[in-house]
C-alpha cells in the first residue's frame, strides 16, 4: 500500500504529526527504532518535564502540559490509541529515496511507499560513541533510566557534560563512582553542578580522571590513558554520556542539504519545514528546535500544509492582539516598531516576533510612574510613543529631570548590573512603552551584536553621567563610550595589580571588587567597591609614580568599563573641575587607607574571609553575635513556628567570623543565582524591596534553586502534611489502632527558604524572638561601613 504520510521517529514531534494526520483521514505509519517517545521514556522516573515556552499555545492532537514523565507518556499513549496511529517498532529506517514522486522507505524489517515523509528522528537516537575496543560489552551503556537501582557498584562515567555530571551526582551516594573527563578540568558546566561535583571530588566521594581517554573496555575493568600513564580502573558498569549529534550522513543520504559544512550546521528547510526534496519534511530537534512544544506544533503544521490548508504561525494571533493599537498587517506593525525604535532596527523578523511575544506593552494615559528609584527590577523599556522623565533622589532643588523621547530606551543600568534602579521614571503625557524581560533581552544581545553595541554604549554614556560627571557633554560621552572597552572578569580574577604601571581607568558596571594591599608577605583587604564605583584613577593622576598602589580583584562575576589613559585625560582636559574633585578624593583615600592600615583591628581580618564566603553578595544577612547568643535556639523555633513547622534557619550550621556567626539562612543576594533556572518562571522571585521568596503553590519541587544557591540556604523539604484525622482517631492511633499518621514523605518536596517574614509587618520572627539581642539582620554594607571597609 502507499501511505499518505510516513513518519520516521516516534517522539513528540513525530507522534503529533501522525496523530493529526490520522485524525484527518490520511493513511499514516510511524517507524520508531526504540520506544515511543524514547528520550522521555529514558528520563529518570517521576522526572518533571517542562512545557516551555509557556506563552506559545500548543497546536497538537496530543496533550502536553508540564508534569511528570509518567503522566505525559500516558497521555500520548492514550492519544495514539484514540486516533489508531499505526506504529511499527522497533524498526530502524536505513534509506529513503524518491522515485517518480513517491518515497521508498527501506527499513531493517521491510520497505514502504509513501507520498510524504516526515523526519522527526531527534538527535538522542544518535549518541556519540567512544569508538574504543570493548564498547559493545554488555556493561557499557549509553543510557541510565533510574540511577537509584544501583548499589555498592564501581561505576565509571565517561563524559563531563551536564548530563554526565547529573548522573554522577545521582549515583555517587550509593556507589563508588569515577568520572572520565577529556579536558583538564570541569568546564562549561552549569554553576551549580560545577560546585557540587567539585565538592564531591574534594570529599573523595567521586574520583575524577582529567585529561583522560578510554584505551579499552574489558569485563570488570577499564583501561584509561592519562597524561603520564595508563590506569586500570575497576568498573562493574560504564555509562557513556558524551552528547548526541545530528545523524548528518543519514540525512544527506536522504537528500537533505545543510547550511554549511560546520558541525553545528542545521538542515536547510523552508517555512513549512520542507527540505530541498519536495515532500520530505524535517521537524523537531533534528531541525534545530529543541523544545518539545515547538516540535509538536511543527508536526501539526506540516500535516496542515500537506492537506493544503494555509496555516499561520502559532504566535500570529497573540502578536496581533498585543499590537492591537497599531494599524495594518502584523508584518507591517512589526516593521513600524523596528522603524520607530533604532535599537530594534538590526533585529531580524523572527527574533523580533519572539521578543515582542515575551514583552509587555504598557499604554500609559498621563503622568504615571514606571518604576521607582531603588526598586529591584531588571527589565528594559523601549519608548514606542510619548516621552518619560527620569528623576533622582539626590537631585538638587530646581534641577530639571532628564527627558527621554520616542525611540529611546531606559532601564539598561539595572538590566546589565543587576543593581537597584538608579532613577525614578515617570511618563509625561500619554505614552506607549514596551517592557522586555531581562532574559529575553540578554538572549537578543547575545545573538545580535549590533543591539549589544547600542545597549552597551548607551549604558556607558549614562553610567559616566550618573557615576562620574553629571554635566558631561553628550558628544564627549558618546565619543568616550565608543572608545571604552567592556571587560568581564570571573570571581578572583585580578583586574589591576599592585606595582604595575597604570594605563586605564575603570568604572564597575556589574559585580564588585575588593582592593588589597600587599606589604611584604602580608596582603590585607582595604576596601570593597560595589557596582557604580570607579577605580584606577590614582596611578593615572600621579605623573611621578604611575604604578598601581593596590591590587584590585573581582569578588564575583564582574564587568567593568575601561577607559584608556588618553581618553581619561581627554575627559579631564574638558572638565578641570572633575580633575580637581578626583585629586581631592585621592588625597582623602590615601589618608583613610593609612589610618586603616594602622587600625588593623581583629574584626578586619575577617573581611577577606567574609568576601570569599559571599557575605557581601547579600542584601540582608542574618548575623548572630556568638558572644551574646545563649544557644537557646529560640530563633530557630520562631522560624519553625511561623513557617508551618519548617525552619528555614539552622543556627548550628553556618560560618563563623570571629564572634559573628552567619547561620544557614537566606541572604537575599544582590544577584540571586537561585532565580536563574526556575521552570515555572516565577515560583521563586524577588520583590521590589529585594526580598527573595518562594510561592509554595507555584513550586514544582525541581530543586534547581536549591542547587543554584551557592550558600546552601534553600532546602528541599516535604511539606508538613495537614492533619485530617479527628482528635479521637489520633488518640486511637497512639495505641496502634485507627488510621495512620499522614506521612510527609507522601508529598513531593518543595523548595523552602527564608522569606524575611515578609508577610509580617514587625519584621523577621528570629530577630524578634532573640532574648539577648544576639540575632540581627543587617545589610553587609551597613555593617561594614561601621568598621570602615566599604565604599569611598
Amino acid at each position, binding site marked *: 500500500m502507499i501511505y499518505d504520510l510516513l513518519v520516521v521517529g516516534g517522539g513528540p514531534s513525530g507522534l503529533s504529526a501522525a496523530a493529526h494526520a490520522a485524525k484527518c483521514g490520511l493513511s499514516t505509519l510511524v517507524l520508531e527504532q526504540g520506544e515511543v517517545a524514547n528520550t522521555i521514556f529514558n528520563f529518570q522516573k517521576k522526572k518533571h518535564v517542562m512545557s516551555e515556552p509557556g506563552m506559545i499555545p500548543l497546536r497538537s492532537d496530543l496533550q502536553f502540559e508540564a508534569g511528570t514523565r509518567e503522566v505525559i507518556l500516558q497521555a500520548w499513549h492514550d492519544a495514539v490509541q484514540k486516533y489508531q496511529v499505526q506504529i511499527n517498532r522497533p524498526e530502524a529506517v536505513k534509506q529513503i529515496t524518491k522515485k517518480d514522486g513517491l518515497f521508498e522507505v527501506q527499513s531493517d524489517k521491510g520497505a514502504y511507499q509513501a507520498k510524504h515523509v516526515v523526519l522527526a528522528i531527534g538527535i538522542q537516537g544518535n549518541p556519540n560513541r567512544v569508538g574504543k575496543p570493548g564498547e559493545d560489552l554488555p556493561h557499557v551503556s549509553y543510557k541510565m533510566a533510574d540511577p537509584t537501582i544501583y548499589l555498592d557498584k564501581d561505576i565509571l562515567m565517561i563524559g563531563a557534560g551536564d548530563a554526565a555530571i547529573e548522573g554522577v551526582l545521582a549515583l555517587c551516594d550509593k556507589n563508588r563512582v569515577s568520572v572520565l573527563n577529556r579536558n583538564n578540568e570541569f568546564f562549561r558546566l552549569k554553576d551549580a553542578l560545577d560546585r557540587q561535583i567539585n565538592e564531591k571530588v574534594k570529599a573523595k566521594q567521586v574520583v575524577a580522571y582529567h585529561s583522560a581517554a578510554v584505551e579499552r573496555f574489558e569485563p570488570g575493568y577499564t583501561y584509561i590513558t592519562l597524561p603520564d600513564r595508563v590506569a586500570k580502573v575497576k568498573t562493574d558498569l560504564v555509562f557513556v554520556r558524551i552528547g548526541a549529534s545530528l545523524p548528518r550522513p543519514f540525512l544527506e543520504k536522504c537528500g537533505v542539504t545543510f547550511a554549511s559544512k560546520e558541525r553545528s550546521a542545521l538542515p536547510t528547510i523552508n517555512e513549512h519545514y520542507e527540505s530541498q526534496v519536495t515532500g520530505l519534511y524535517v521537524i523537531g530537534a533534528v531541525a534545530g528546535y529543541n523544545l518539545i512544544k515547538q516540535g509538536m506544533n511543527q508536526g501539526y503544521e506540516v500535516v496542515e500544509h500537506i492537506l493544503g490548508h494555509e496555516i499561520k504561525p502559532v504566535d500570529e494571533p497573540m502578536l496581533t492582539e498585543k499590537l492591537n493599537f497599531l494599524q495594518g498587517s502584523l508584518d507591517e506593525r512589526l516593521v513600524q516598531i523596528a522603524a520607530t525604535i533604532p535599537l530594534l532596527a538590526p533585529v531580524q523578523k523572527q527574533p523580533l516576533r519572539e521578543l515582542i511575544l515575551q514583552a509587555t506593552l504598557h499604554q500609559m494615559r498621563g503622568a504615571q510612574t514606571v518604576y521607582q528609584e531603588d526598586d529591584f527590577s531588571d527589565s528594559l523599556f523601549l519608548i514606542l510613543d510619548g516621552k518619560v522623565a527620569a528623576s533622582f533622589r539626590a537631585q538638587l532643588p530646581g534641577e530639571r529631570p532628564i527627558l527621554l523621547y520616542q525611540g529611546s530606551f531606559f532601564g539598561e543600568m539595572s538590566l546589565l548590573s543587576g543593581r537597584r534602579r538608579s532613577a525614578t521614571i515617570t511618563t509625561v503625557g500619554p505614552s506607549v512603552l514596551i517592557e522586555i524581560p531581562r532574559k529575553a533581552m540578554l538572549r537578543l544581545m547575545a545573538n545580535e551584536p549590533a543591539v549589544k553595541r547600542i545597549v552597551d554604549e548607551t549604558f556607558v554614556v549614562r553610567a559616566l553621567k550618573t557615576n562620574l560627571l553629571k554635566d558631561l557633554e553628550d558628544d564627549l560621552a558618546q565619543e568616550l563610550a565608543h572608545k571604552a572597552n567592556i571587560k568581564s572578569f570571573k570571581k578572583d580574577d585580578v583586574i589591576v595589580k599592585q606595582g604595575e604601571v597604570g594605563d586605564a581607568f575603570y568604572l564597575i558596571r556589574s559585580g564588585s571588587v575588593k582592593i588589597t594591599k600587599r606589604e611584604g608577605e602580608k596582603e590585607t583587604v582595604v576596601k570593597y567597591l560595589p557596582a557604580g564605583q570607579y577605580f584606577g584613577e590614582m596611578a593615572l593622576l600621579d605623573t611621578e609614580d604611575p604604578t598601581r598602589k593596590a591590587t584590585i580583584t573581582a569578588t564575583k562575576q564582574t564587568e567593568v568599563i575601561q577607559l584608556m589613559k588618553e581618553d581619561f585625560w581627554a575627559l579631564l582636559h574638558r572638565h578641570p573641575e572633575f580633575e580637581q574633585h578626583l585629586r581631592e578624593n585621592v588625597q582623602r583615600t590615601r589618608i583613610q587607607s593609612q589610618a586603616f592600615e594602622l587600625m588593623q583591628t581583629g574584626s578586619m581580618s575577617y573581611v577577606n574571609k567574609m568576601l570569599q564566603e559571599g557575605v557581601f553578595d547579600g542584601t540582608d544577612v542574618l548575623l548572630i553575635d*556568638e558572644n551574646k547568643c545563649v544557644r537557646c535556639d529560640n530563633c530557630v523555633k520562631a522560624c519553625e*513556628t511561623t513557617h508551618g513547622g519548617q525552619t528555614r534557619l539552622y543556627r548550628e550550621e553556618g560560618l563563623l567570623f570571629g564572634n559573628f556567626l552567619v547561620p544557614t539562612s537566606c541572604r537575599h543576594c544582590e544577584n540571586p543565582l537561585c532565580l536563574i533556572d526556575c521552570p515555572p518562571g516565577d515560583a521563586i522571585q524577588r520583590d521590589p524591596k529585594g526580598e527573595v521568596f518562594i510561592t509554595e503553590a507555584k513550586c514544582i519541587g525541581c530543586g534547581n534553586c536549591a542547587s543554584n544557591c551557592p550558600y546552601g540556604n534553600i532546602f528541599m523539604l516535604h511539606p508538613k502534611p495537614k492533619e485530617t484525622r479527628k482528635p479521637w482517631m489520633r488518640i486511637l492511633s497512639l495505641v496502634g489502632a485507627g488510621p495512620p499518621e499522614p506521612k510527609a514523605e507522601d508529598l513531593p518536596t518543595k523548595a523552602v527558604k527564608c522569606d524575611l517574614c515578609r508577610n509580617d509587618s*514587625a519584621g523577621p520572627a528570629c530577630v524578634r524572638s532573640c*532574648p*539577648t*539581642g544576639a540575632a540581627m539582620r543587617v545589610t553587609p554594607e551597613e555593617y561594614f561601613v561601621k568598621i570602615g571597609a566599604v565604599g569611598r
Partner: protein
Amino acid sequence: MLEGTVLFYSGKRYLILGASAGAVLLGSYAYYASDTTPSGGTVGGLIYGAIGLAAIFALMFLGIRKRSYASHLGTVRGWVSAHIYLGLLTLLIIPMHAGFHFGWDVHTLAFALLVVVVLSGLGGLSLYLALPPLLTKYESGMLPDKIQSELNRIVGEMKPLAAGKTGLFQRLHFEESRRAYEPKPQGWRLLFTRPNTSSALTVRTQELNRILPQIPASQQEDFSRFSALLLQKIEMESYLTGQMRLKNALQAWLYVHVPVSIAMLAAVAVHLLVVLYY
C-alpha cells in the same frame, strides 16, 4: 562592659523604670508604715499584695511570650530585660505586702520559693552574660555539626581498618563506634550528668600503647593508623564535651527556675485560699 546586653536594653529603659519604681515603692512604704502597722491584712498591704500578684503574672507571662513567635507585643529581648528588673522588684514588693513578717507557714514558703526563683534567675543571668564568649572560644571555628560530620568520617575510616582483624582490635572498634552514637544528655539529665572531661587523650594513648604488643605484627600498621584516627576522635569528642558542658550550664538553671516558679505559684494559690477563704 554591659553595654548592648539585655540589662541595658533600649537605652537602659527598664533599668531606669525599675529603679524609679523601686524608689516610688520605698517612698510609699515609708508613708504607709508611718501611720499603720504594716501587715498583709491592711488596705496598704492588700494593695502591695495585688501589685505583687500582678508582677508574678507579668513575670510568668514571659514564658508564654517567648513561645508566641508571631506576637507583635514587643520583642522577646525587651521582655527579658523587663523580666529581670521586675523580678528583682518582687523581692521588695512581697515583704512590703507582709510588712516584713515571716514565719514557718505556707505564706512564707511562697516567699521562700520566690527567693529561690529570683536567685536562680540571677544565676542564670550571670551565666548568660559570662558563658557565651567562653563558648565562642571553645567553638573556635568548629560548630557542632562540623564536629559531628568529622566524627562520622573518622568512624567511617576506622571500619575498613578493623575489618577482619584480631578480636581485640575489633572489640576496640566496636566500643568506639558505639560510643560515637551515645545519646547526648538532654532535659532533666542536664542537671545530673557530669560530662567526662578527664584527660581522656592521655588515658587512651596509654591504653593503646598497652594494647599494641598484643596485636599481630601483620596488623600493626593498620592498628597504628587506627590509633591515630581514634585519638583524633577523642580530641574531637573532648571539644564536643567542652561545648556540651557550657551549653548544659546555659540550660540547666532553667530546670530550677521554671519548676520552682510553678511551685511558687501553687504556694501563692494556697496562700490566697487560706487568707481569703478562712
